[in-house]
């Protein structure tokens, strides 16, 4: 897979799996695959003159929660000091049946970019609990007019998780977080261009959409919605990714 750097400066990287690292379904195999995926990521970035510090958003796709600690441990080491925003999914399967980990990423040349609300995984809970791996993340990456947000959930910006078992409340909190974070990057929901909504059970689609749409529909965007096996922690029942581009920063506009 080749990365695509379009003339306007977004670098799309997608569907990166380990390839030659081969099949395997042990923790050690997952680590090996993760190392190979980040080798590939670095190679793809370098092939178009980009660096790790240009990375904005990563979406980590893992086939089983059992691999999360191993894969994120590798990620934390390979992306130390980068502070990307991240979304983590546990999915039914990947296109490569031998792969347990796949990575999607967006980069914008010209980094390092502005990174707001940096945090280290060990000092921040995911849902109710802290996780063991060490990784540096942030909540918002501002790369010129492009704004990348961490996938938002029922975890408040103060890192509380008040809505256990209430997916509708989690959805309202998540979109509320988006509404609070965008202004920190000089934007509003009017600058959003697309959303991706993840739920962990089909029965949650209706309450999640009821929680999101009163806010999201004020500035209509296209969205994708799918059911995943899991998110960062079992108690996190939904997540939303919003991508925004500051309309007032597009050339030729007043």
């Amino acid at each position, binding site marked *: 897979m080749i990365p695509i750097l379009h003339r306007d400066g977004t670098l799309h990287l997608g569907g990166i799996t380990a390839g030659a690292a081969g099949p395997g379904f042990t923790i050690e195999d997952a680590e090996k695959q993760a190392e190979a995926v980040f080798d590939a990521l670095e190679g793809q970035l370098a092939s178009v003159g980009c660096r790790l510090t240009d990375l904005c958003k990563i979406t980590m796709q893992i086939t089983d929660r059992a691999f999360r600690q191993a894969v994120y441990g590798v990620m934390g080491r390979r992306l130390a000091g980068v502070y990307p925003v991240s979304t983590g999914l546990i999915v039914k*399967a990947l296109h490569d049946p031998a792969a347990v980990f796949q990575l999607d990423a967006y980069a914008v040349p010209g980094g390092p970019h502005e990174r707001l609300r940096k945090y280290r995984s060990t000092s921040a809970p995911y849902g109710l609990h802290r996780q063991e791996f060490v990784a540096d993340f942030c909540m918002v990456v501002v790369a010129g007019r492009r704004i990348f947000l961490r996938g938002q959930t029922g975890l408040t910006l103060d890192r509380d998780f008040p809505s256990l078992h209430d997916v509708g409340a989690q959805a309202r909190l998540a979109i509320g977080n988006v509404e609070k974070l965008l202004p920190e990057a000089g934007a509003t929901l009017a600058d959003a261009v697309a959303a991706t909504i993840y739920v962990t059970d089909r029965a949650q689609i209706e309450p999640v959409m009821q929680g999101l749409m009163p806010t999201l529909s004020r500035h209509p965007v*296209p969205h*994708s919605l799918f*059911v995943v096996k899991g998110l960062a922690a079992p108690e996190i029942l939904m997540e939303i990714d919003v991508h925004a581009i500051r309309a007032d920063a*597009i050339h030729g*506009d*007043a």
Partner: protein
Amino acid sequence: MAHQRLRIDGAGTARAVKAGPEIFLRGLSGPGDAAAQAGQAMREARALLAEAGSALEHVCKVTILVTDRAWLAPVRQVVADHLGGTAAVATDLIVNGLASPEMLVAIDIDAVIPGAPA
């Protein structure tokens, strides 16, 4: 200038948003079996892109979501047929479900608009 929103529906969703030289399409699908759903998704993508001054040859990224591995090969074939020789970055995911139980396939697309101000 505000982003341009294409085909806003009663639920407050747009089918596409055009932001300067970029356009974003999400959750494209259609009726029928997996290949038919992918075909309808790509025809809609073609129409939306044309409406915004773009085309399938300007697609940068395609995300294919399917509910069963068995759908992946036929759906990829349909997408490749529509994209022709366009080398887009692709991500495929096999998921536990899509927006409705009838949906077997959904396609997300990021594309650019040649000649639009950046």
